């Protein structure tokens, strides 16, 4: 039971981390290697609002998420737009931005264990004999809501449909009057906001450290590769797969091996099924 509950929580956390990355890649085909940096940035912005400006907590969270979204949009608008369509340049440029942000933060002295965010609600309750704190329950609740919201957003709103059109065939979308550059900015801003959302939900469980940026990026990439790059359904599925695998590893083998799971998942996927669990699109193309 413990394994199930914590596996579920872990999976939802992974899904939250990976969704932003999957969204940006799915729409603009840009692998956003600055994803982890945006995650950490949102954590620090929230921290600054709460601790330095002493705004109230929910307001700071919303402001921080919006700022992160804007930062993401600006990164696309001023830098990534110039290398669009060149896979290697996109990776180098976005990774360089991520590195600059993370190491810049470290250089400005944002390091050590002093930066923490308060949990949303203290205390815990017993769930089938397992203690679960309220904060983790909130994480699960928000995570499920976000997945549902994304589904509705991409299937029933104009912008969402436009985003999906672009993900499938950018030029055909252009012919219908969907402005691909504007959509890519929206996707990048939205993806960054999702990274920020993951940050404000998950960071209160630990410290805000620069290293978290690298871990988050790695996890996001692992989830997206296993699920099939660009497939959001695949990303959620893969989050559950890796999430449970991680918890099982922690319980039966040892906590140090947790990160190995993600890396092993990448390697196994690339050997066995390079297009990922839900990389249907590519297969279809190959068949035709």
């Amino acid at each position: 039971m413990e394994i199930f509950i914590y596996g579920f929580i872990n999976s939802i956390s992974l899904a939250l981390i990976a969704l932003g990355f999957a969204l940006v890649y799915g729409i603009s085909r840009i692998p956003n290697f600055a994803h982890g940096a945006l995650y950490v940035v949102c954590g620090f912005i929230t921290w600054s609002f709460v601790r330095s400006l002493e705004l109230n907590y929910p307001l700071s969270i919303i402001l921080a998420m919006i700022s992160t979204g804007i930062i993401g949009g600006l990164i696309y608008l001023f830098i990534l737009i110039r290398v669009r369509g060149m896979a290697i340049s996109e990776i180098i440029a976005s990774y360089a931005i991520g590195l600059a942000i993370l190491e810049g933060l470290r250089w400005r002295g944002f390091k050590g264990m002093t930066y923490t965010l308060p949990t949303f609600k203290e205390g815990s309750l017993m769930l089938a004999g397992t203690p679960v704190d309220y904060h983790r329950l909130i994480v699960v609740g928000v995570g499920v809501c976000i997945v549902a919201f994304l589904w509705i957003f991409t299937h029933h709103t104009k912008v969402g449909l436009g985003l999906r059109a672009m993900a499938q065939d950018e030029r055909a979308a252009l012919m219908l009057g969907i402005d691909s550059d504007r959509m890519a900015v929206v996707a990048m801003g939205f993806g960054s906001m999702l990274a920020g959302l993951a940050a404000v939900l998950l960071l209160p469980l630990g410290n805000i450290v620069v290293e978290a940026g690298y871990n988050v990026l790695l996890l996001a990439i692992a989830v997206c590769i296993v699920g099939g790059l660009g497939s959001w359904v695949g990303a959620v599925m893969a989050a559950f797969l890796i999430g449970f695998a991680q918890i099982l590893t922690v319980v039966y083998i040892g906590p140090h091996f947790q990160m190995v799971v993600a890396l092993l998942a990448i390697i196994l996927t690339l050997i066995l099924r390079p297009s990922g669990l839900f990389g249907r699109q590519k297969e279809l193309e190959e068949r035709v």
Partner: protein
Amino acid sequence: MLEARALMVFYENMLALNNVSIACGEDQIVGVFGANSAGKSTLMYTLSGIIEDIKKKEEMAGGERITVMGTLLYRGRDIMGLSPSRRAKAGIILCPERRRIFTESSVIENLRIGGYLASGSQARETLEYVFKIFPALARLKKRVGGFLSGGEQQMLAIGRSLMAQPRLLLLDEPLMGLSPLIQATLVRATREIRDERGISIIVTEQYARPVLPIVNHAFILENGSAVLEGTREDLMNNPDVRSAYFGV
């Protein structure tokens, strides 16, 4: 409606369109006929502005240098260099060669995506109209685009373009690879669209015969140049054209 004068398009040093001038009046169906690589698709890309996007992408990747020259007047306004989404907003919608429908989305979703530029009421009204002229689509609403037959996909592609509220519809080889029966359906639908919606249409084909009965005016492209133009009757009576494009 649309007037293109002396269009020249170069891919590096290769001349894809050489001094092409074509025009399409209000409520007209204009045919553009030519063999493979005559420049039909390049012409459609130039009119719809997609060429600007291709050019931008090539420039960014350091690929082919594409040059577009000439004048392009749409409803009296010069639209040369305007981005494809701006032209789409102005009412020039391209229904591309090989259809390019969204293969992972269902039929109804493809149509809803097409309605990106339409208002809510326009989208509802047009959706009804699309199902009226292509009843087959209404039955396949939930089917995923990739699993449709070629003819169904072409109906969907035309329907999707209609959803974008065109004033000038560019149909790039809509009949390619389809059975004569489906071809007849599509040709009839094309004329209906012009008659009932007041949409001007430019249609390209390799083989002129199926569409010729509905065109008001036609141009013949050869190696990137418009070698001949005229009304339907003019072309019908031209012996060269008859043998080359009608197979008579």
